[in-house]
């Protein structure tokens, strides 16, 4: 009898709280998006699963001694996992299109306005009762506008760990929704004639340029923004491994097995922050709303910047590639290509959009560094 009672008390049914049930449904929702809708499945699948695991009553998976607790504190609280992933992303990135057309860096810069406008917006949301974002919170939220997962997680883990779950969910969800969010904005801000603009073929880029480029980026980050060097440094290390051509076996492992392992653990660890207390509040709604705003403003800024540049440039620039400046590599570049093809079936913008696309990654890392330096 006593044993039966003990058995009953050790079931989940006897210990559930409403918040946990809701958060498990949120986790299932993330799994649905990942599996059925193919929304950034590499991260949302482990993250959704982690959300379910962390909300299991009395299992202690996220408490001291539990697996998710170890993963979070060893890998995310320390910043190690996002930095290792950023190294892998660097090793996957080809800066060729950017070096061939360096002006596109300005598009990647303009799109970061999505970040800083959102910072302002987050502070403005403090006028809503029940929401109280500190400047650190606002900075962490704004980085969603960078459309770059590891950067967002790294900054959030530094500035507002208690918001990490909501920020990561927003960042990856909106990144997956880039093909839905961006096209209407792109069409609204451009004329058909502008969308039809064909761009000149890119010049070939030499090996030496590709090798020196990441070192140059790192040097500039060292001179002007040391706070960005963890992110920029690991990214450039990955890229240098890729381009140097002398450590292919390391580059390959970084792009494959290492990033795969860390992605699973990162997803589980981020999911472990999706507890009811941390997620089920009006602040999360605010974060989700701000995220959508951030992506929209970033997209618009990129497109408008491209239109401005087009006025001053002899070589024509299709304004659609400005939208790729938000990063979300390579989705945003594909979207630019697709919208371009609608207007002109012979207009292949993919390679041209890769320039602002990877510029956006650098731009977000720089913006992250500024936030860490001035707010952190």
């Amino acid at each position: 009898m006593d044993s039966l009672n003990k058995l009953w008390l050790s079931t989940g049914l006897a210990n559930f709280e409403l918040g946990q049930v809701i958060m498990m449904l949120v986790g299932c929702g993330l799994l649905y998006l990942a599996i059925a809708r193919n929304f950034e499945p590499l991260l949302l699948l482990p993250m959704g699963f982690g959300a379910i695991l962390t909300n299991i009553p009395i299992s202690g998976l996220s408490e001291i001694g539990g697996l998710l607790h170890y993963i979070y504190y060893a890998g995310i609280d320390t910043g190690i996992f996002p930095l290792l992933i950023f190294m892998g992303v660097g090793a996957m990135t080809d800066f060729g299109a950017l070096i061939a057309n360096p002006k596109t860096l300005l598009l990647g810069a303009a799109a970061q306005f999505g970040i800083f406008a959102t910072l302002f917006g987050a502070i403005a949301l403090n006028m809503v009762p029940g929401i109280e974002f500190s400047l650190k919170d606002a900075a962490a939220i704004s980085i969603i506008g960078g459309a770059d997962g590891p950067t967002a997680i790294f900054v959030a883990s530094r500035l507002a760990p208690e918001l990490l779950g909501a920020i990561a969910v927003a960042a990856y969800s909106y990144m997956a929704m880039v093909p839905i969010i961006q096209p209407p904005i792109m069409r609204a801000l451009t004329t058909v004639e502008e969308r039809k603009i064909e761009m000149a073929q890119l010049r070939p880029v030499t090996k030496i340029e590709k090798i020196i480029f990441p070192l140059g980026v790192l040097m500039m980050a060292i001179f002007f923004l040391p706070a960005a060097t963890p992110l920029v440094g690991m990214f450039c290390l990955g890229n240098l491994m890729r381009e140097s051509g002398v450590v292919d076996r390391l580059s390959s492992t970084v792009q494959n097995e290492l990033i795969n392992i860390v992605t699973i653990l990162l997803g589980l660890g981020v999911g472990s922050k999706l507890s009811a207390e941390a997620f089920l509040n009006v602040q999360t709604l605010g974060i989700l709303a701000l995220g959508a705003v951030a992506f929209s403003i970033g997209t618009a800024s990129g497109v408008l910047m491209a239109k401005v540049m087009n006025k001053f440039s002899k070589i024509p620039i299709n304004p659609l590639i400005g939208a790729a400046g938000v990063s979300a590599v390579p989705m945003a570049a594909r979207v630019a290509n697709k919208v371009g093809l609608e207007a002109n079936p012979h207009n292949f913008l993919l390679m041209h959009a890769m320039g602002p696309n990877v510029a956006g990654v650098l731009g977000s890392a720089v913006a992250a560094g500024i936030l860490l330096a001035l707010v952190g």
Partner: protein
Amino acid sequence: MNSMEQQFLEAGTLMLAGMVFVFVFLSLLIIFINTVLAKLSIKFPDPITLNTARSNKKNNKAANGEISPAIVAVISGAVSRYRKQHASSPQKSTK
């Protein structure tokens, strides 16, 4: 409401400082590409055969040459099996 104003001021300053900084940083990168890299690319042009070599190299697993012996072995087998199946075809007579 004083604190609110102050927060807005801080946020506005951050926005301004941040956007200026981002633009300056990436503009300097443009200059870096147009000067340093441009000079380097002239001074150290790619060898002519490099293009194809590089394109192969990016296939990660294959790059280390780890797979190739296995693949070659399998292919040899496949090709010889293929040839055996066609042992009666005219082409065999050329052997």
